[in-house]
């Protein structure tokens, strides 16, 4: 079946003082309808840029993004505007993603007004009110301004705004990171309920690994602009292959006491994304680094659906992932 969204060789470079910043470098992803993709990584890995490329808020330097089979990177302005009805985005910061001068009603109405969806005011108002009901915002807040509401309610406004046009695909860029733990859970439940109700598909971008497993069936791990591992989230969490993924999973502090204190902690810091050297970008911090790692590596399927870009698995055939990953095997 045709994937809902597919990226092929997607690249986004920025010119900065000092060279070229490789924000997203040669990313190949595919998202099927109904199967959420979680994109994880730490700061600077390019996940936010990837999200914006996926909905054409940014133009790619190279590569294609296929939405329902059509390459959206080639669309001209008018078609991009039409695209907004099908692809939307929920932003991270509920404090800065809402215009402080607009009331809740006006904020949610914007996509409807700009796309001339409803011929009469009344129909539009009905739609807005029902959206508010759907996201759990009491109707009495329709005249309120963002600064009068708390983070959780503001994020609900963001959700309502994104879903007003009934899109098929929504990129959620760290939608709960700025919220308190108990509010995070409320919003996550909301997103999952809405997915079921409206038949949505999410690309869920986050740095919080516990959240991503909860909400996505597929997961892609990003490091310095490259996708270094990809696969069903259950599989990747149970059997992480790439040394970075392993360390990332190990680094998350679990709210339990029965953890062994010994952890593999990565040393060093993320290297500079400006003018990166060829080869694996994680190499400087990797315990399994060898000379082979200085050559560019592609994602290779190691288990059904589980891909990894690491020299440790280059010579492997699918199904033999279990025995790789120790120093001795090199």
């Amino acid at each position, binding site marked *: 079946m045709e994937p809902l969204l597919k990226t092929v060789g997607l690249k986004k470079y920025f010119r900065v003082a000092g060279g070229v910043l490789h924000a997203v470098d040669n990313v190949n992803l595919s998202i099927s309808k109904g199967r959420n993709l979680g994109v994880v990584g*730490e*700061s600077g890995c390019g996940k936010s840029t990837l999200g914006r490329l996926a909905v054409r808020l940014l133009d790619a330097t190279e590569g294609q993004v296929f939405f329902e089979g059509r390459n959206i990177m080639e669309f001209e302005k008018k078609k991009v505007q039409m695209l907004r009805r099908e692809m939307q985005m929920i932003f991270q910061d509920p404090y800065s993603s809402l215009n402080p001068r607009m009331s809740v009603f006006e904020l949610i109405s914007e996509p409807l007004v700009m796309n001339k969806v409803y011929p009469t005011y009344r129909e539009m108002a009905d739609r807005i009110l029902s959206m508010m009901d759907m996201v759990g915002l009491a109707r009495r807040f329709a005249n309120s301004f963002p600064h009068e509401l*708390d983070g*959780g309610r503001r994020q609900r406004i963001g959700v309502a705004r994104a879903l007003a046009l009934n899109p098929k695909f929504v990129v959620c860029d760290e939608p709960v990171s700025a919220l*308190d*733990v*108990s*509010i*995070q*859970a*409320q919003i*996550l*439940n909301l997103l*999952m309920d809405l997915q079921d109700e409206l038949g949505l598909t999410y690309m869920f971008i986050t*740095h919080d*690994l*516990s*959240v991503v*497993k*909860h909400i996505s069936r597929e997961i892609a791990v990003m490091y310095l602009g490259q996708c270094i591992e990809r696969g069903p989230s259950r599989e990747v*969490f149970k059997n992480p292959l790439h040394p970075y993924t392993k*360390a*990332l*999973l*190990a*680094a*998350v*502090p*679990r*709210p*339990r*006491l029965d*953890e062994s*204190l010994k*952890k593999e*902690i*990565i*040393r060093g*810091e*993320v290297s500079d994304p400006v003018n990166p050297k060829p080869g694996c970008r994680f190499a400087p911090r990797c315990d399994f680094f060898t000379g082979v790692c200085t050559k560019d590596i592609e994602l290779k399927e190691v288990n059904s659906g589980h891909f990894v870009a690491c020299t440790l698995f280059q010579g492997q055939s699918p199904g033999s992932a279990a025995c790789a990953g120790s120093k001795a095997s090199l």
Partner: protein
Amino acid sequence: MTNPLLAINDLKVVYTTAGSVVRAVNGIRLEVMQGETLGIVGETGAGKTTTALAVLQLLPSRTGKVVGGHIIYKGEDLLKKSEQEMRRIRGAKISMIFQDPMTALNPVTTIGDQILESLRIHNGGKQQERRLQERVDELLQLVGIVPSRKRDYPHQFSGGMKQRAVIAIALACDPELVIADEPTTALDVTIQAQVLAMISELKEKLGTSMILITHDLGIVAQTCDKVAIMYAGEIVEQGTVRDIFLSPRHHPYTEGLFGSIPDMDVEVGRLTPIEGLMPDPVNLPRGCKFHPRCRHAMDICRTVIPEARQWGTHSIACHLMREEGV
């Protein structure tokens, strides 16, 4: 039983802004022993940072005020001390690590000079410059920064390294107690792991006591000996880390917190978040402050503030506990 290093008794702090009174901390009781790490867990607005600032008397002078209670440090009440006396304590005996390393460092001074500043203030002119510089190098190595980088400015450091520098400044004069306010919240998870490991190592090496303020129960499990859970300016549950993670009894808020966190290793269909929001500190509910959000709220919860019930080291302030007679 030895005396606690720091004992906070019935502390009350308010903020007065144009007309309204924000009751930030409403009578809390905490104790930190020598060499121990106490974790204070709570969400935004619970009063954790206010407590930390109150200990060091760093509340914003225009609006914040301690209106009750005692903060006993080694037998003396810090709230009765003058500003001059407090200055001798800050940095030297009790120091603080702030949340955002980006703003905690002075952007126009080198890292080395910032560490030096702390040393100079508390060691006066007694020690020579060279000895102080050696100490700066020592500290930088202790936190994992190459000493040659002491001539760099904060903007040349990454987030993780900035936080290490902040920790170096906090430890410069060998304090007995370090208060860390969400020290790793602004950092990436792998860098967080590095910094937490370093903090644990340092604690063991130097025997420093610590108050660690966080909202992350995972960090608490990993680094703390004792835990206090704060809600709306009160401590609703307190105990050793075993009590909090292994005991079958919990305050409903604590249960809610655990239910809100998606666990990486266990699959759960739907999370069980706590309904509603933390109360407006200007308009706190009567009785138990959690009752509007509590699944088990009873009539008594609406009018009477629950007293803490003790089971050994574990204390919970909830009428439910009383009722069941457990």
